[in-house]
């Protein structure tokens, strides 16, 4: 039976509906201590003193640890994927409210929590900067000196730089933008902004470290076990093989649980006390861990007489918060898609990753793409309106067709942009007449499409183990956090080895056992690890055939593996182990022009169409229809793929209409689910989710990743629909009723007073 393309339930469904699925949340070890963190109360300041006496005096407290204690264990206790800028516990300075300053260890987490509140820290406060455009000027400098990690060639020139908040500046120049703007019949410019929001996985960050005899085991809710191993080994100056990282199921990730988060702290604490240490954050604490970049995007286009975009200039400012995390990669690897999926000969892109005194920002379901699509698809709609061209027609006229070079110079291949747009238009009945309502309820509709490159070049390794009875196990360090990677890989192994997918067992990440994977992020797994899994299964198949030949079985006959083993070894004995690694080719962008003809192994394409009703008396927006479409290559499991598309779109609906971290003096004032509103069951519009089947020829069985594609178009499609309904343009997220009402009143010449 064909396994790839089958709609089977995910492998772990029974464990999940019975509440028995394994999460780090559940883990308890003998002798384990619980850690709680004392956090900075100021956004920017030098630490004058830390008084831990009252905390130590609390009955049941085992130990109180500060940054200086960590420095005795690890001389350079700084970590981070792009910059080694983040101390395990604050040293000398704090850079954002909520930064970990000290940790309390106790056998009872309630005791640790109470004691942590008794730690008194005195600061010499420094002025703080929160806005990404203001941070371009060195009036307030967040870090005294830049410390790039050295892993990335394009960050080397930043080493040791002082008096700046710019963690990376990426520039792309294609054609001659100034000349083309000069010749254009019309030049249109806008500025768009996005807000700070965050992942909020329902299993908040949690890690456990367990010291052994010259070894350390870390159980962690992480999307990147291999990276954690490398980074913890680097911090301790150990070889990798002394660090073991184990990851069971994740209660959500969405890009939050990547690289090192709590792991360095639990590792250091457990080494200091020689006991297992668990640190589990509360929902509130997640607001001080990692967020999605707020952005300002200035976009300008030159258009000719025929409605063709001839030039586009993009300036993007990414608010990275206090630590760079993966922000510099977002700035560059998403930055080069800033002009959108359009065929434009003259392009300039200036993309800046900036330090500010906010909670750090990293990757959130789209790696910066939703912020870019918000701007370029709102802008595209405004140009179409100004020209009086139907917005779908305008897009068709300008989109990148197969084989044409994208801004970076890389040709579009296996990218179903036109098909995604056509699918959305068809499901929206775009050519049919549309009722725009009357009275106080007005109706509108809008579309938006976006695209994304895959993070590259990255490596995945897989092992397929066929046991003597023919039962087969797959070892990978890919993390299944609900996206269905275990199931998709089982289907691939089963397809190659002629098994039932349900019979393939998956060993979850355990770096003592499972081989390297760069990380479960950026929709990379199905493509990268999928290719490795397919090759590993093919390797096992080749070795089984060789074993059959050794056993003297005639060639060309399809013996079951169990018979081959029995014939070869005389009993149920032996193994066949297939292995493979996969890393795509890649060319770094040129340092001067930012161009490369091979920036990504595949393209993700996604878009949305929406219909809205706007209440002109209150500004309330109701989404009455949401169509999402994505190029998913050839889906391995269409049912699971569709739920990825749907889940991503609903998540983006929250980032569009309600989610917004509010700051007051650097302090988050709505750090709870009561005040930071995520979508609930009442907020779900009627939806259609369309998988646009194409073929990713370089992907396993024609497949490509799509965990993020559903996010791309939602926000601008809604803004475009609101404009269609009531003639006002919202340029900043989130689109609250208040924002719409303010715009309506301003349009009517009766502006509301400022807050």
């Amino acid at each position, binding site marked *: 039976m064909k396994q790839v393309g089958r709609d089977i339930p995910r492998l772990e469904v029974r464990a999940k509906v019975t*509440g028995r699925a394994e*999460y780090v949340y*559940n883990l308890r070890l003998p002798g384990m201590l619980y850690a709680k963190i004392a956090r900075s109360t100021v956004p920017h300041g030098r630490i004058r003193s830390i008084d831990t006496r009252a905390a130590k005096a609390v009955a049941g407290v085992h130990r109180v640890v500060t940054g200086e204690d960590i420095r005795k264990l690890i001389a350079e206790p700084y970590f981070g994927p792009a910059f080694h800028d983040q101390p395990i516990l604050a040293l000398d300075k704090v850079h954002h409210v909520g930064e970990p300053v000290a940790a309390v260890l106790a056998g009872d987490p309630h005791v640790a929590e109470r004691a942590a509140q008794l730690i008194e820290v005195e600061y010499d406060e420094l002025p703080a900067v929160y806005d990404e455009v203001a941070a371009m000027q060195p009036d307030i400098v967040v870090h005294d000196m830049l410390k790039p990690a050295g892993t990335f060639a394009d960050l080397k020139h930043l080493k040791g730089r002082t008096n700046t908040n710019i963690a990376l500046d990426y520039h792309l120049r294609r054609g001659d933008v100034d000349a083309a703007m000069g010749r254009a019949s019309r030049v249109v410019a806008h500025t768009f902004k996005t807000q700070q929001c965050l992942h909020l996985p329902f299993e908040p960050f949690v890690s456990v470290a367990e010291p052994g005899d010259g070894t350390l085991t870390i159980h962690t809710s992480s999307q990147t076990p291999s990276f954690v191993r490398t980074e913890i080994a680097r911090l301790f100056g150990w070889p990798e093989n002394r660090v073991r990282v184990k990851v069971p199921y994740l209660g959500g990730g969405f890009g939050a649980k990547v690289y090192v988060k709590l792991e360095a702290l639990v590792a250091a604490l457990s080494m200091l006390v020689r006991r297992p240490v668990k640190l589990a954050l509360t*929902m509130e604490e997640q607001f001080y861990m990692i967020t999605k970049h707020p952005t300002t995007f200035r976009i300008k286009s030159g258009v000719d007489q025929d409605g063709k975009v001839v030039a586009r200039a993009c300036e993007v400012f990414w608010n990275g918060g206090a630590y760079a995390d993966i922000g510099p990669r977002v700035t560059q690897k998403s930055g080069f898609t800033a002009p959108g999926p359009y065929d434009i000969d003259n392009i300039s892109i200036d993309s800046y990753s900036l330090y500010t005194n906010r909670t750090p920002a990293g990757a959130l379901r789209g790696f910066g793409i939703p912020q870019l699509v918000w701007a370029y698809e709102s802008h595209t709609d405004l140009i179409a309106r100004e020209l009086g061209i139907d917005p779908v027609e305008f897009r068709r006229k300008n989109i990148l067709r197969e084989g044409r070079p994208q801004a970076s110079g890389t040709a579009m291949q296996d990218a179903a942009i036109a098909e995604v747009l056509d699918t959305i238009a068809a499901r929206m009945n775009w050519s049919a007449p549309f009722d725009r309502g009357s009275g106080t309820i007005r109706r509108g509709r809008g579309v938006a499409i976006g695209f994304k490159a895959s993070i590259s070049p990255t490596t995945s390794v897989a092992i397929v183990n066929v046991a003597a009875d023919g039962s087969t196990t797959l070892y990978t360090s890919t993390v299944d956090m609900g996206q269905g990677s275990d199931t998709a890989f089982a289907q691939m192994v089963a397809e190659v080895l002629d098994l039932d997918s349900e019979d393939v067992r998956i060993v979850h990440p355990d770096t003592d056992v499972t081989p390297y994977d760069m990380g479960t992020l950026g929709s990379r797994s199905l493509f990268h690890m999928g290719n490795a899994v397919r090759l590993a299964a093919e390797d096992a198949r080749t070795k089984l055939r060789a074993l059959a030949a050794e056993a003297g079985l005639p060639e060309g006959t399809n013996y079951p593996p169990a018979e081959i083993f029995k014939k070869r070894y005389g009993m149920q004995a032996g193994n066949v182990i297939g292995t493979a690694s996969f890393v795509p080719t890649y060319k770094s962008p040129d340092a001067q022009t930012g161009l490369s003809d091979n920036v990504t192994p595949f393209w993700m394409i996604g878009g949305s169409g929406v219909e809205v009703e706007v209440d002109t008396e209150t500004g309330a927006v109701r989404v009455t229809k949401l169509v999402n479409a994505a190029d998913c290559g050839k889906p391995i499991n269409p049912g699971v793929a569709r739920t990825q598309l749907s889940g991503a779109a609903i998540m983006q609906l929250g980032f569009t209409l309600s989610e917004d971290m509010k700051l007051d003096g650097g302090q988050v004032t709505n750090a709870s689910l009561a005040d930071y509103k995520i979508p609930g069951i009442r907020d779900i519009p009627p939806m259609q989710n369309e998988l646009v089947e194409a073929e990713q020829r370089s992907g396993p069985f024609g497949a490509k990743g799509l965990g993020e594609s559903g996010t791309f178009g939602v926000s601008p499609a809604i803004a475009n629909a609101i404009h269609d309904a009531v003639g006002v343009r919202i340029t900043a997220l989130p689109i609250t009723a208040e924002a719409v009402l303010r715009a309506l009143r301003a349009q009517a010449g009766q502006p509301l007073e400022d807050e």
Partner: protein
Amino acid sequence: MSMQNINFTLNGQAVSADIEPHRNLVELLQRFDLFGARESCGQGLCGCCTVLVDDKAVSGCLYFATWVDGKSVTTVESLDANGALSIVQQAFIDCGAFQCGFCTPGFVLMVHQLLKEHPNPSDDDIVHYLSGNLCRCAAYPEIIEAVKVAAKR
């Protein structure tokens, strides 16, 4: 802090425990190695900690452990006690009504209560009963479908 001795029925079995008065029901259940009720938001808003006490859904994170003294507590782990999944659990599987699975036990228990009180729920009933459960993976359309499938069975 002083311990309090409590006696209650846990998934049909009479049990007792010594517990401090500040502990919540989720912590009590963990002492019995039951991890299906999970504390997530800590404010009774997300429903991940849903437990039935005397057949009524409560938020385990806001419910003091000592309050179950003399009561009957039902957790998600009881639903397949005889080895077979409940109709609701099977419907969740058939409809793909979860992704990461962290909130799933809470939804499953809430749907059990919904169907007990409204065997043929309207869309309004479904949304009303499940508005206190949140799913960050946003499997809501599939959850609604699963409720309808379970109701038909």
